């Protein structure tokens, strides 16, 4: 039976990310703290003003769906990776779990990830639903 086992939602204000958005020549240290090299490379090529905040929001929503945070679990921000794949359509993306996030996902017998996001000129919002 397909059950919802976890749900997380996160909203971020775009203006708070403005100072962290990297260029191809300068990547702030904060970005390296949170995003994998692949995410950085991907996001730099794709509406970075949106993809970086969306990525952060996705990770936060995932922590919430798992019922943990990066400070009370062994899961690192980089264990949750979201890769946007189409410059013309941000709705095309994939979510990958690595490290302890992947371990917890399997341990709790989650089988499916449902995800949604929306954005405006001021905010991004991301939702993650975990199913059995």
């Amino acid at each position, binding site marked *: 039976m397909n059950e919802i086992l976890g749900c997380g939602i996160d909203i*971020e204000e775009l203006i*708070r990310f403005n100072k962290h958005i990297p260029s191809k020549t300068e990547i*702030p*240290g*904060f970005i390296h*703290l*949170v995003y994998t090299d692949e995410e950085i490379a991907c996001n730099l090529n794709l509406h970075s003003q949106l993809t970086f905040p969306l990525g*952060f929001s996705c990770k*936060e929503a995932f922590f919430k769906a798992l019922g943990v*945070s*990066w*400070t*009370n*679990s*062994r*899961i*690192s*921000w980089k264990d949750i990776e979201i890769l946007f794949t189409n410059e013309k359509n941000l709705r095309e993306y994939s979510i990958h779990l690595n490290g302890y996030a992947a371990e917890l996902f399997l341990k709790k017998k989650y089988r499916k990830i449902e995800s949604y996001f929306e954005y405006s000129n001021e905010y991004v919002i991301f939702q993650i639903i975990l199913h059995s």
Partner: protein
Amino acid sequence: MIEITESIRKEVKEIVCQFFAEECEVDLSKINDQTNIISDLEGDSLMFLELIEIFKKKYNLNIELKTVGKYVLKHPVETIGQLIDTQLLMIKYENKITELD
């Protein structure tokens, strides 16, 4: 290892308090060691990460986020005072902070 002097202690406290005063739009006089970061200031993960990056840059620290996560797992940070103490330990011990346990 950086030795923590009174001057560094004072500077760290100023940076932390000033940071939250600006980010949370709260009067600096209302922030003290007992101030709860989440319930009093509505602090969040983004602020915590930004602070870590500020101190990494300022003191040229060799410390990874997963190390911070491991340390904070055993030593939760809820108040400004606890945050300052943790930042001071990070400055002093860097990646070796988890060896303190």
